[in-house]
């Protein structure tokens, strides 16, 4: 049963990715599409192989990562409102990006690297706060520390924006809104390098997350080590989110809603929820990005706008359906 559903979900993901490659700001007929895919040197081949394929793969990896992170963090802090950016990450990443743009270093990778560093800095600070105030990692303290660190980083970011070259920084804010426009094979490889280990780790500990859901004491009785588990989940989720923020800014809604949708449509068991959230989150972001690229051609919408515009009604329907007896 579970296996069959996974096969179906994987096939759906593949179809969505094919769709993502087939549509874009340049519309191609099926014939042009096939010719382009065969001839990498032509203009259409360049568009497909150089821009669209890496973009679709990047969208899938980012969306999947956000889905997994959301599922894991919601289990960790035992709060349905948890999302990947809750724990101070987005604040730290935003601060890093804005600082890099304000300093105008002139190197092509400065902004993503600074965002990554900022996110990791925020993670370290939150982690330190949450562990210091008690020997164990208290999810409530973690949550509060995340909010506080995020607010602090946001304040510094606003101060930088006010104090320096505003037109340039207006664009920094647009960058933070998120988008997959800077996708390339390089950024895909970079993200993959940072994502694979945390993804595998989170999948590996998914079964223990089911124990954690029963309460920390029960989990300990059943053979899990809750303290170690919480730390692993927190660090893996943070690394995953930091890498995705660095490559494509802050893309909201996916990490919050995909796990809930999978839970309602399928199962709350984490050993299924985690991989299913990966496939669903990836497919959802690929679809949202395809819409963002095509609805207003040649203008591109920020993908975060589409994830919310499409995702909220879908989720509302799902919520109603599962609530009504």
């Amino acid at each position, binding site marked *: 049963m579970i296996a069959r559903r996974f096969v179906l979900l994987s096939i759906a993901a593949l179809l969505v990715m094919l769709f993502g490659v087939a549509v*874009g*700001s*340049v519309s191609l007929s099926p014939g042009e599409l096939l010719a382009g895919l065969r001839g990498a040197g032509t*203009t259409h081949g*360049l*568009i497909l192989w*150089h*821009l*669209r394929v*890496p973009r679709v793969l990047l969208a899938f990896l980012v969306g999947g990562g956000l889905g997994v992170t959301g599922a894991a963090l919601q289990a960790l802090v035992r709060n349905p409102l948890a999302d990947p950016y809750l724990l101070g990450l987005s604040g730290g990443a935003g601060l890093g990006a804005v600082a890099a743009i304000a300093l105008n*270093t*002139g*190197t*092509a990778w*400065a*902004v993503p690297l600074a965002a990554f560093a900022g996110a990791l800095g925020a993670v370290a600070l939150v982690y330190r706060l949450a562990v210091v105030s008690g020997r164990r990692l208290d999810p409530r303290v973690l949550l509060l520390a995340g909010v506080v660190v995020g607010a602090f980083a946001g304040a510094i970011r606003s101060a930088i924006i*006010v104090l320096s070259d*505003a*037109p340039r920084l207006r*664009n920094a804010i*647009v*960058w933070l809104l998120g*988008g997959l*426009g*800077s*996708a*390339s*094979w*390089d*950024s895909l490889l970079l993200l993959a390098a940072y994502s694979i280990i945390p993804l595998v780790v989170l999948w590996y500990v998914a079964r223990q997350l089911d124990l954690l859901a029963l309460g920390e004491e029960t989990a300990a009785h059943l053979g899990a080590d809750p303290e170690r588990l919480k730390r692993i989940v927190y660090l893996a989720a943070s690394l995953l989110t930091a890498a995705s923020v660095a490559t494509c800014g802050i893309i909201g809604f996916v990490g919050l809603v995909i796990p809930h949708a999978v839970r309602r449509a399928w199962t709350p068991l984490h050993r299924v929820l985690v991989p299913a959230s990966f496939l669903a989150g990836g497919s959802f972001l690929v679809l949202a990005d395809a819409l963002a*690229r095509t609805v*207003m*051609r*040649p*203008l*591109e*919408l*920020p993908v975060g706008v589409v994830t919310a515009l499409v995702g909220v009604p879908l989720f509302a329907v799902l919520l109603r359906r599962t609530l009504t007896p």
Partner: protein
Amino acid sequence: MGILHFRQWCAAAVVALAACGSPESGQRSAVNGRPSTIDRPLVVIDDAGDTIRLARAAHRVVSLIPATTELLFAIGAGDAVVGRTVWCEYPAEALKVPAVGDGMLPNIEAVVARHPDLVILYLSSQNAQAARKLRELGIAALQVRTDRLADVPRVGRMLGRLTGHEPGADSMGRAFADSLSAATVSSQNHPLRAFVLVWADPPMTVGAGSYLSELVERAGGENVYADLPASSGQISVESAVERNPDIVLVLGKATPAFAKRPEWQAVPAIREHAFVFADGTEFGQPSPRAPSAIRFLTGQFRAHQAAGARP
């Protein structure tokens, strides 16, 4: 032939009379020692549709738009400017005027501290609130749009009327129209196809309605994104690949960092570093210096076309 002469003479006489009009009224008021418009209040309807009525010409003006700061100096009202934004860098005299902020979210207190009798704001919803607040404090607030070439003489005249520099504004407007038509390149069979890249990540360009697009077109170029439904917006790299511009126009003076990013290598003009660098405030704001900006672009475009034509 005689009739033609007569007509020309008539036209000349009308122009002469019109030209006499304003200095005469100016002299009369100077004799009375009263403001020049005591009998004709200064009235302007701004771009928000609000009526701005001044009892006498403004002589303490805070300009919260770089373009209007430049215009005030261009029409001879530079002495009246007592406040500006941190972005107002032209002309050099403007830098001697105290800056009151970045102009986006006006700091009312800093503006009021300059004791202005007129504040100029860019037309936006945020500024509308600021304008209301200033009016409550008894300070006239003018909201204008400065987005296009045509706004230069139009807003110039508004400012001329409110500051009592109508002749200056009129002559600036006439000189602008003349040099603009002189600088404009007549349409070509194969115009250089230009991609105006105002920001790289995310990629942002300008549509047909924008000032930069107007400059490009008058310089004999063609904006490859002229079909954009907005005056500016975010586009995708792949559409830039398909539109295949001859050159990429960037604001600045050196090859931008994004040119090295892998995703941009798919655009031939960027791969080949076919950049035109538009450096200077005359490219960033509608300006009386637009004709010289156009001449600069024309020269750059021709150089690129000559280089491209070589076998």
